[in-house]
C-alpha cells in the first residue's frame, strides 16, 4: 500500500541528510524499512548471518555485510560487529527495527559514540523505560495511572486497611511465593481479612514467610497501546491507539487500530496520558505506551516500548503516515513534522501475525520449507514478509513469518477483508496459524469487540479447528487428485472408445 493519501501534507518534502542507513535487523521488518529508504532515495545496508546469505532483506538491500556468530541470533545481537559494519560501509545511521538490539541502551550508546545516528530514542530514554520499576515510578510521578498495589507486609490489620483502599477485586499472594500457593482473588471487603489470613498462613507454611502482597486484579484486561512520537525537546504527539488484546503464550497475534468499542472520552484520556509521558521523558522518535484496560474503564500503565512496534502498520493504515519515514526525519533532527491536529484517523485496520506454529498443539512452533506462497493482493491489503520459495523455516528465528494487514471503512469491513485475505493466502510447506486467525476474527465475541487478553483461552473450544465440511473436503480431494500426475494420467490417458464406454462389464 502506498502511504500517500491521507497523511498530513508537509513531511514528504523535507530533506533527510542520510545517504546510507544500515538496518540492524532481518526478515519482514528489514524489508519494510528498506522500502521506505528506497522511496526516500537512501541506500540500505543489510546485515546477515551466513545461514541467511540469500535472504530477501539481503537481496533487497544495496549492500550487505555478513555477521559472524555461533548462532544467527547471536550474530544479530553483536553490537561491535554491527557498528563496525555501519562504519565500514559508510552508513550515516542505523535503524534497529524491532527486537534484537532495538531496545538495547548500550547499542544506542555505541552507535552514537561511533558518530552514527541511532534511529530511535537516546540511550537514557531506553534505559529509563527498559527498567520496569523505574518506568512505573516515572509514569506514576507524571500522572499516568499505574495499577495500585499494597507492598508486602506482616501486619495483617494494616495490610487489610490499605488493601481496602485500593478497591476490588484484589489479587492476594504470598510475597515470597510462586506457583499459586497462597494466592486468591478477593471480590469484597468481607472476604478480605479471611483471605489475607489464609494466604498468610499458607505463605508461612510453604515459604516460611508470612508476608502477603496485594494488587488490583484487572479482570478480562484489554491491551491498549498508544503510538507516540517525541521530538526529544519535550514535544510529543500520538498517532492514536492500537488494541492488541488477542494474545497467545503472552504474545500478540491480532492487533487493530483503533481499539474496538473504545468510548471517545476514554480514548482521549489514554492518548493524552501517553503524550504526557513522552513529553515528560523528553522522548525522541517513535515509542509505544502500553496499558492494561479494565472492564470498568480504568487503565494502568504497563510499559513503554522505545522502538517501532511489529504492529505499526495498523497505525499507518488508519493515519496514512509512514512511520519509518517519520522516524528517519526525526532522527535527522527535523523535530516533529506536524502537530497533533494534523493527525487524523480514517477507517479501521487489522493486523494478523502469520506464525509457523500449530494452534492445535498449544501453538508450538513448527518448522518446514516454504513450498509455495500465493499472496492476495488489493489496495487495502499489506502482506509484510520476507519469504522465499524453498526457504527453510527453522527454530533459529522467531516463528512469525509474515503480517497480513487489512484496512476497511469500519471494523466489520476490516475484519471481513482480513478473513477473505487469510482464506486466499496460500503458504505451503509449514503449518501456520493462518486459519486459526481467521476463526478468531470470525468469532462472534471478536466481531462484537468483546476482547481481553484471555480471549484465546476463553474461546479455546470454539476456536479449535473443525473437521472440514464434507463437500469442501471432497472438493479439495478432487483438486488435489487433479494435481497429481498419477491421477491425471488415470483420467486423461485412457484411449477411446474405452474412455467413452466407461465402466462396462459384460
Amino acid at each position, binding site marked *: 500500500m502506498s502511504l500517500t493519501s491521507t497523511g498530513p501534507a508537509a513531511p514528504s518534502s523535507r530533506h533527510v541528510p542520510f545517504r546510507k542507513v544500515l538496518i540492524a535487523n532481518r526478515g519482514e521488518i528489514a524489508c519494510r524499512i528498506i522500502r521506505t529508504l528506497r522511496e526516500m532515495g537512501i541506500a540500505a545496508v543489510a546485515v546477515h548471518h551466513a545461514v541467511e546469505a540469500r535472504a530477501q532483506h539481503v537481496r533487497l538491500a544495496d549492500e550487505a555485510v555478513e555477521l559472524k556468530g555461533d548462532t544467527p541470533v547471536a550474530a544479530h545481537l553483536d553490537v561491535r560487529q554491527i557498528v563496525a559494519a555501519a562504519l565500514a560501509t559508510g552508513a550515516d545511521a542505523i535503524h534497529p527495527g524491532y527486537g534484537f538490539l532495538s531496545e538495547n541502551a548500550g547499542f544506542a550508546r555505541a552507535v552514537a559514540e561511533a558518530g552514527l545516528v541511532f534511529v530511535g530514542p537516546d540511550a537514557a530514554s531506553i534505559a529509563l523505560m527498559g527498567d520496569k520499576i523505574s518506568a512505573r515510578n516515572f509514569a506514576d510521578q507524571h500522572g499516568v495511572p499505574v495499577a495500585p498495589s499494597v507492598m508486602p507486609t506482616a501486619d495483617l490489620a494494616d495490610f487489610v486497611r490499605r488493601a481496602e483502599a485500593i478497591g476490588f477485586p484484589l489479587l492476594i499472594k504470598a510475597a515470597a511465593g510462586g506457583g499459586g500457593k497462597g494466592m486468591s482473588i478477593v471480590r469484597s471487603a468481607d472476604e478480605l481479612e479471611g483471605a489475607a489470613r489464609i494466604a498468610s498462613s499458607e505463605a508461612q507454611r510453604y515459604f516460611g514467610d508470612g508476608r502477603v502482597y496485594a494488587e488490583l486484579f484487572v479482570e478480562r484486561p484489554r491491551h491498549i497501546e498508544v503510538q507516540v512520537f517525541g521530538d526529544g525537546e519535550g514535544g510529543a504527539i500520538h498517532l492514536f491507539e492500537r488494541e492488541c488484546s488477542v494474545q497467545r503464550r503472552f504474545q500478540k497475534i491480532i492487533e487493530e487500530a483503533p481499539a474496538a468499542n473504545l468510548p471517545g472520552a476514554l480514548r482521549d484520556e489514554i492518548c493524552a496520558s501517553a503524550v504526557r509521558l513522552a513529553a515528560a521523558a523528553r522522548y525522541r522518535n517513535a515509542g509505544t505506551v502500553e496499558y492494561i484496560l479494565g472492564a470498568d474503564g480504568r487503565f494502568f500503565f504497563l510499559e513503554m516500548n522505545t522502538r517501532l512496534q511489529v504492529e505499526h502498520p495498523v497505525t499507518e493504515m488508519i493515519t496514512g503516515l509512514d512511520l519509518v519515514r517519520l522516524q528517519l526525519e526525526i532522527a535527522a533532527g527535523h523535530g516533529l513534522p506536524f502537530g497533533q491536529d494534523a493527525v487524523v484517523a480514517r477507517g479501521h485496520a487489522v493486523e494478523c501475525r502469520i506464525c509457523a506454529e500449530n494452534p492445535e498443539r498449544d501453538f508450538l512452533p513448527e518448522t518446514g520449507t516454504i513450498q509455495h506462497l500465493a499472496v492476495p493482493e488489493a489496495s487495502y491489503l499489506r502482506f509484510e514478509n520476507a519469504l522465499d520459495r524453498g526457504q527453510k523455516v527453522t527454530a533459529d528465528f522467531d516463528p512469525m513469518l509474515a503480517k497480513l494487514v487489512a484496512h476497511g471503512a469500519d471494523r466489520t469491513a476490516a475484519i471481513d477483508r482480513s478473513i477473505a485475505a487469510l482464506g486466499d493466502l496460500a503458504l505451503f510447506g509449514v503449518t501456520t496459524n493462518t486459519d486459526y486467525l481467521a476463526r478468531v476474527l470470525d468469532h462472534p465475541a471478536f466481531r462484537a469487540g468483546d476482547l481481553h487478553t484471555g480471549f484465546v483461552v476463553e474461546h479455546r473450544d470454539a476456536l479449535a479447528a473443525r473437521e472440514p465440511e464434507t463437500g469442501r473436503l471432497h472438493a479439495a480431494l478432487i483438486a488435489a487428485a487433479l494435481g497429481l500426475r498419477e491421477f491425471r*494420467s*488415470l483420467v486423461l*490417458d*485412457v*484411449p*477411446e*472408445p*474405452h*474412455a*467413452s*464406454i*466407461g*465402466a*462396462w*462389464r*459384460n
Partner: protein
Amino acid sequence: MRRIESSINTASAEFRRNEAHNRRLVAEFREKQEAARHLRPPRDLDRLARQKKLTPRQRIEKLLDPGTPFLELSSLAANMAYGGEAPSASSIVGIGIVSGREVVVRADDPTVKGGAWYPLTAKKIVRALDIAMENRLPVVHLCDSAGGFLQLQSQVFPDRYMAGRIFRNQSLLSKMGVKQLSLVFGHCTAGGAYIPGLSDYSVIVRGTGAVFLGGPPLVKAATGEDVSVEDLGGAEMHTSVSGTCDYPADSEEHAIAIGREIVSQWDRSERWALQREAPEDPFYDPQDIYGIVPDDIKKAFDMREIIARMVDGSRFHEYQPNYGTTLVCGYANIWGYKVGILANNGVLFNDSSLKGAHFIELCNQNNTPLVFLQNITGYMVGREYERRGITKDGAKMIMAQSCSRVPKFTVMCNGSFGAGNYGMCGRAFDGRFLFAWPNHQIGVMGGDQAANTLAEVKANQMKRAGGTVDQAAVDQVWEETRKAYQEQLSAYYSTSELWDDGIIDPVDTRNALAVALSASLNAPLGPPGYGVFRF
C-alpha cells in the same frame, strides 16, 4: 448416413412374447455366469481368506483403470464339461485398460481346484494368447495355479494345441515385441512356472507367491530333499538369488501397483487409422432386441432391426439394397468406428453370395473391418441352384472372407447351420472375435432335421433288414438324436467348448464389438490378395 426406419411395434403381442422369451434366456445366462464367477465351495473361499489372498476377480478389478470397460471372454467356458466343476475353465480372460493401455488380462482361479489347468483351461489360455498375437495386445498374467489337472493329463499335456502351446505362444509374443507381465500371487507349479519364466516382467508376492518346476512334495519324492516352499521358489529367493522374478511385492495390492507401473512404462503401440466419427448412441433402444429376436429359431426376422439397435445413431448405409436381399450389406459406425456389416436375412442364394463376396472385397479395398451377424440356415440347395453354381458362388464368398486383410468379427445372433457358417466367418475362419447370443444354436443342421434324417436312415435300415418298421424304435432314434443335437446345438455347449469367445447379452453387443474393434487396430492389416476365385 441415414437412420434405419424401424417397423417394429413394441406394443405388439408378438414383441411382448419374444421379449419375455429372450429376457428369460438372458436371465438364465446371467444366472449361469454369476454362478461361474462367484459360486464356490466355502472351503476354497475360506482358504483364500486365510492366505489373505484376493479372489482373481478382485485382483482384476484392482488391476484395471477405474471407470473403464472390461470385456470378459468365454465366461462360461467348460460350463458343460467336468460335471461343471471347472467354472470359466478355472481361468479368467478378458480385455481391459491397465495404465491407459489395452491389454489382455488372464488370471488363474485358485478357487477352482487350486487353479488347476483342465484341458479346456489350456484351450482358453491358448486362445487368449492367440488373441494377444493376432491383435498385438500385451498380456498381464495373474498367476495362482497348482499346475495341470493330473487326472486329465492326456488331454492337457501332449497335443499341438494343449498346454505346450501356451509357452510357444508366449515365446512368439515376446519375439513379436508384444509385452507380457506376470504377477505371481500364488504358486506357479510345473508348466505354470514358465508363465512368469517367459514373461518380460514378473512381480512376486512375498509369503504367498512361489515359482518352481516341482513343488516340495515332488522334490521330496524325486530326490529325497526336504525343502520349504519359500526356500524352493519364494519371492525372496527368486528376486535376489535366481533372478527368475523381477520385483518382490509386500502384498497383492503392492504387486498390482508395481505391475501397473510396469505397464505404464510400455510404449503405446501404433494403431492403424481406422476411420472414426464422434460416437452416437443408437437411436432405437438396444433393449428392443429382446422383442425382435423370435421365440422360435425357425421364425425369420429382419436383421436391419438388430443393426438399428447396435450402431451409432441407428444409421446404416445399405449396399445394393435391392440385390441379393437375403444378405444385408452396408456401412455403419460402432462407437465411432466404421465397419462393414454383413447380416443374414434368409438363406444365401447365388446373388446374395456374390453380393457378399463383392462387399467383402470393397471393405478390404477401403480398410473397413467386417462384422458378420449370423442367422443362417445355409446356402440354397436344389437342382436349379446347383445348376446356377450355388457351390462356386458360395466358394467365392468363402474365398473373399477367408483372405480378408481387414479384421473380422462375428456375432451369432441366432442359428448357424451348415456351410452358411463358413461364408459368414464361423470359428474356423480366424475372425478376431466371435460372440454368441444365448439363443444361438449351431450345427451342421438343426435338431429336427438331424432327427428326421437319422430316423429316416433307421427306418430304411429296418426295411432292408426285415421289411417291417418298428415305429417305436424309429421314434426312439428320433428322440435321442434330437435330444443329443439340442444339447450340442445350444450356445452353452458351444461356449463350453470354446467355439466362441463367449456368450454375451444381446444389448452388450455394441460395447463388446467396440472393445474388440479397438483391440484389432493394434495389429497391422494383413497382406492384400486372394486365392483363385472360381467364376
